[in-house]
């Protein structure tokens, strides 16, 4: 935080001024404070409590201790599958999206003329990717006899529609997430623009080839942006819902392969009315996201370089 300026500290009335500033600060924060405590912090505490109960909204919550959690991890194959496919989706989809975004950003950074057009065109899917409309389009495109299926038939590949097949629906969901690489790409592109040209020229003079320049100049200077995109990408991927729900018609099928954690949570809490159990699922999700964020923050020292900052 910013330190008080020395000339202000000695001035009389300083304490009164600080008090006034505190009052103003909290006044400006009233809506946010209400939202933070009323709609985030207290509900979080309550959902933690609910996760130790059996609760169906009609009768009061009944304390059952760790039963929900024990059941999730030992006696609920649906949850285990849900956790598994969610992890695959996150751990495969996010790196591919990041690589696609970085690759295209580097391509766009090569030339300024015309780049603005492509930048916008690639960004569009990020805005609508999670919408129901796009999920419906995806469903139609990958259905049996849909454009993708018929397109592959032209090459003699007959997969027979991706929607109904347990082995193909997850790759299809990953493709849908990779398709939304645009927002990540825009952030990479802004980062690339900040890399000083002289560094590349100096590296070239020292005889570094393109790959070497990429490894030794681009990657280190871009590492804060990579870190940011990786963090937000992972966390966002855990929360995919609408597309999975629509593509499976709310079932999480075929064979539970679109039953992502959020879909399972929704079905458990709001379709089956098992609110306590659903709260436990939500807390497992929260803990996993927190662990991933923690690991990323802990390891960032070893690979994220902040220029002009010798912490």
């Amino acid at each position, binding site marked *: *935080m910013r330190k008080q300026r020395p000339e202000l500290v000695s001035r009389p009335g300083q304490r009164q001024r600080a008090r006034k*500033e505190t009052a*103003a*600060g*909290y006044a*400006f*924060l009233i*809506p*946010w404070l209400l*939202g933070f405590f009323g*709609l985030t912090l207290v*509900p*979080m505490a*309550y*959902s933690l409590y609910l996760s130790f109960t059996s609760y169906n*909204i009609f009768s009061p919550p009944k304390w059952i201790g760790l039963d929900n959690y024990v059941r999730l991890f030992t006696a609920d194959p649906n949850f285990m599958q849900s956790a598994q496919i969610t992890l695959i989706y996150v751990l495969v989809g996010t790196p591919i999206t990041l690589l696609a975004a970085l690759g*295209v950003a580097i391509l766009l950074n090569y*030339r300024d003329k015309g780049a603005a057009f*492509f930048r*916008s065109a*690639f*960004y*569009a*899917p990020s*805005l*609508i990717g*999670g*919408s*129901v*409309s796009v999920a*419906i*389009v995806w*469903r*139609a*495109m990958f259905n049996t*006899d849909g*454009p993708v299926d*018929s*397109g592959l038939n032209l090459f003699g590949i007959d997969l027979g529609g991706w929607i109904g097949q347990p082995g193909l629906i997850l790759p299809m969901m990953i493709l849908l997430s990779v*398709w939304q690489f645009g927002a990540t790409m*825009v*952030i990479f592109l*802004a980062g690339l623009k*900040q890399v000083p040209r002289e560094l590349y020229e100096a590296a070239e003079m020292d005889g570094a080839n393109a790959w070497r320049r990429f490894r030794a100049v681009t990657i280190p200077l871009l590492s*804060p*942006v990579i870190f*940011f995109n990786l963090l937000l990408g992972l966390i966002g991927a*855990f*929360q995919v*819902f609408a597309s999975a729900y629509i593509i499976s*018609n709310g079932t999480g099928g075929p064979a539970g392969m679109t039953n992502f954690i959020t879909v399972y949570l*929704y079905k458990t*809490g*709001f379709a089956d009315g098992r609110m306590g159990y*659903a*709260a436990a699922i*939500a807390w497992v*999700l*929260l803990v996993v*996201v927190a662990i991933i964020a923690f690991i990323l923050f802990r390891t960032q020292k070893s690979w994220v370089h902040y220029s002009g900052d010798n912490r």
Partner: protein
Amino acid sequence: MTISSSSPNALVQLENQVDPDPKTAPRRRVKRKTWQTIIWFVALLTITAVVLYPLVWLFVSTFKPNSEFGQNQGLIPNSPTLDNYAKVMEGIAGVPMGQFFWNSFVLAALSVVGTVISSALAAYAFARLQFKGLGVLFAAMIGTLLLPFHVVIIPQYILFNNLGLVDTFVPLLLPKFLATEAFFVFLLVQFIRQMPRDMDEAAKIDGAGHFRVFWSIILPLIRPALITCAIFSFIWAWNDFLGPLLYLTSPENYPLPIALRLYNDQTSSSDYGATVTASFVALLPILLFFIVFQRFLVDGVATQGLKG
């Protein structure tokens, strides 16, 4: 757009230089550059085609009669028709399409108002004021940026259910007026911090209070960021699915995404035309928004990421 628009200039520049062998060396370099540009262009056009194909497919499919789905996967409809549009405008479940549109619009517009006001107030406090607890509260705000929203949906649902507010717009709008979307607060904080302090300090010396500084100096300065927030909150509210799915139960309250689900459910394969057309119609305002405001959207994302 011309592919080689930059090369003539480069050629002139190079030929003006004193070169030991003016005929061959510079020309070869120019040629190589032109080729690189052409490859660059073709590569990006290919990616564009792949990325935009689903949207183009959606658009042209709205003109296909039902009988053509499953047979004609090409882009061009064999016998184009406007029947799908007529059918979609009639609506579904006894509710006309216009009603769904209106619901979506009301939700999105009020979300914009709530988000912009509450986030700007909070951002001013976080970015410009010094007070006890600032550090802790700012960290908490950043924390909610990473918090999976699903942890609070069950208690929030119970809360609004107990208040008798299910099947109203209140559960969907109240969070917007209370700045619960940390993304916007964070974006505005970053933007305000970039603004020079000279003007607000001058205003304070002239006796302006914090609200005056906020209203007359900061708000006009951060207008581009406010526009970015407004556009994003509009689009997100327009696209939101989980919220309305939880809270809205009667079809006359449904916004478009939930209404689309009706098409999708009832017509698993029989009325593709209406489903696809309704999807396109629902997407149309966003696509128009995007075309008009893309500069704000793209720049907004770029600033947000870089300062993180």
